[in-house]
């Protein structure tokens, strides 16, 4: 069987899953991404365990309380992975994340992916957050996004002070909402989306995020 990520052949020990599962990841590729296990309880940024990080303190001071579960560090390997997935369009790579995303599933919760604007969706052809959300559980399109410019080239401060692009598209019957996004850089997007949802009357909003950007690292911002 060929590895999903590096596409080189490797051997899988036989199990019943061999018949059912199509996408296998070789042990070398599986160890590339760094999981975030302990760290800030609100955003998962690595650091002293149980201590809220500076970024989150700033969000709390603004009165926005949102707990984000981040899965992997957005380091070198994470960047490569996400670039292949999101900008290269190699959509099947999400299947690598299927087990860990599926383990986050809860009852009585609806998963809401951060939407893309119409134009962006047409050029990219898929919503990367939507695919992640579908791996976790039932999704609903609650939000819509109006057209804004790309955040990729913006700095940290510029990112924070942007008008809220999100609006409610269709109300959900479910009370609990979990937002799903691919990268948590400053958290502006997620907090804006959560703010919109709270204004619309949803009390319990939390978020799941695949990658968490590490502060004070020299990575290019996405």
């Amino acid at each position, binding site marked *: 069987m060929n590895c999903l990520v590096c596409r080189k052949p490797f051997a899988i020990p036989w199990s019943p899953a061999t018949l059912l599962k199509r996408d296998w990841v070789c042990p070398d590729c599986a160890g590339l991404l760094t999981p975030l296990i302990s760290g800030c309880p609100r955003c998962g940024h690595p650091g002293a365990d149980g201590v809220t990080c500076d970024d989150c303190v700033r969000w709390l001071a603004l009165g926005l309380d949102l707990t984000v579960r981040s899965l992997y560090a957005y380091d070198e390997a994470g960047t490569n992975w996400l670039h292949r997935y999101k900008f290269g*369009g*190699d*959509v*099947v790579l999400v299947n690598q994340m299927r087990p860990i995303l599926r383990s986050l599933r809860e009852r009585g919760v609806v998963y809401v992916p951060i939407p893309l604007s119409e134009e962006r969706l*047409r050029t990219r*052809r*898929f919503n990367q957050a939507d*695919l992640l959300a579908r791996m976790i559980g039932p999704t609903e399109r609650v939000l819509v996004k109006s057209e804004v410019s790309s955040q990729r080239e913006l700095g940290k401060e510029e990112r924070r002070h942007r008008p809220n692009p999100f609006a409610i598209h269709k109300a959900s019957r479910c009370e609990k909402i979990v937002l799903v996004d691919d990268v948590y850089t400053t958290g502006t997007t997620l907090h804006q989306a959560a703010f919109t949802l709270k204004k619309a009357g949803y009390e319990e909003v939390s978020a799941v995020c695949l990658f968490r950007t590490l502060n004070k690292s020299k990575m290019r911002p996405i």
Partner: protein
Amino acid sequence: MGQLVVRPTGRPAIRFGICQRCLSTDVRAFTCHHGACSYCRNCLHLGRICRCDRLGEEDITTPVEPTELVMPFELSDGQRHVSEQLLTWWDQKKTGLVHAVCGSGKTEMAFPVIERVVNVGKRVLIVSPRRDVAIEWAERLECAFSVPVTRRYGGGEKDTIGMITVATAPLLLNLKHVFDYVLVDESDAFPFAFDMALWWTIRRVGKGIFLFVTATPTVWQRQFPTAHLSRRYHGHDLPVPTLVKQTDEAIVAFCRRKTPRLLFVPTKADLVRYGELLHANGFTYRAVSADTDERTDTLEWLEATNGIVLATSIWERGMTVRGVDVAVLDSSHALFSSRALVQMAGRAGRKPTAPTGDVVFFYHERTFRQDRAIREIEEANRR
């Protein structure tokens, strides 16, 4: 005819689960913005195409220009005979095979026919299995021809087409019926032999006239009219391999020689294993595998310092070291086909200044593959 590009009108990019650009079946389903769709994973590096895209063809617009040929050296009698044969094949519009032993100057033999094709106003493509080989081709062609040579491999200009193009196969995927004469170098080598889709793309790139050039043709390639050349251009015999029972002492004794020594091993794990053996006996060596980036550096080091290099089959083709002695460790391994063994034996004695060299096959058990390789070399020497 021309380049395949994504267009609003045209034919669907993926039909019947086959990517129409790269002809692979590695097509995966996903959800597009408008619903169920599928995309091709094999040619993602050319930009993703999915089922809702459409492919159109765009004509090649680079100007046609004539060329002048300056031969780097006079061809020997055998080489001239073969190159005349190539010219007749071109006039008759026939596909052919050149079965020439390793180190017989296959590159230069093709120059006259390339010149004629270009001067008629047709485009020539040279496909090679590896980038190193492609670079060597491009350098030699640039010395001999006055037209610029287009390099279409990783690291070169990837989206241009000239009169003479040197390319590796994966970068030809988005072309269709462009080249009138396609020269497939080392046509039995790794990607062509195992990846059928790659062969289909190469067939589609050309207009039907091919020339296979190899020292070890496959059975399929033997169906074409064949030109044999079984003398090296310096006129000496090919070194015939000797079979030696493999023991640690025998390997160490081989390594005691003063010439550059090239040891082939079957797998990457063996690089480590035999490396430890050499290290324990106080030899310094370098290892070469597909992961090694500084392969050309190692080649120069081997030639300059008469050192020892452990290599996997990545070096079995297209490299020349002056006065090298070749050993194949564990030559009964299933990965060493008789073709690979012939190629590895052909690394020895390629330079006119050092026309001989020793080739040793170390074996644990005798196989038909070894016998066939030795028989082929002896046959070539007799012819």
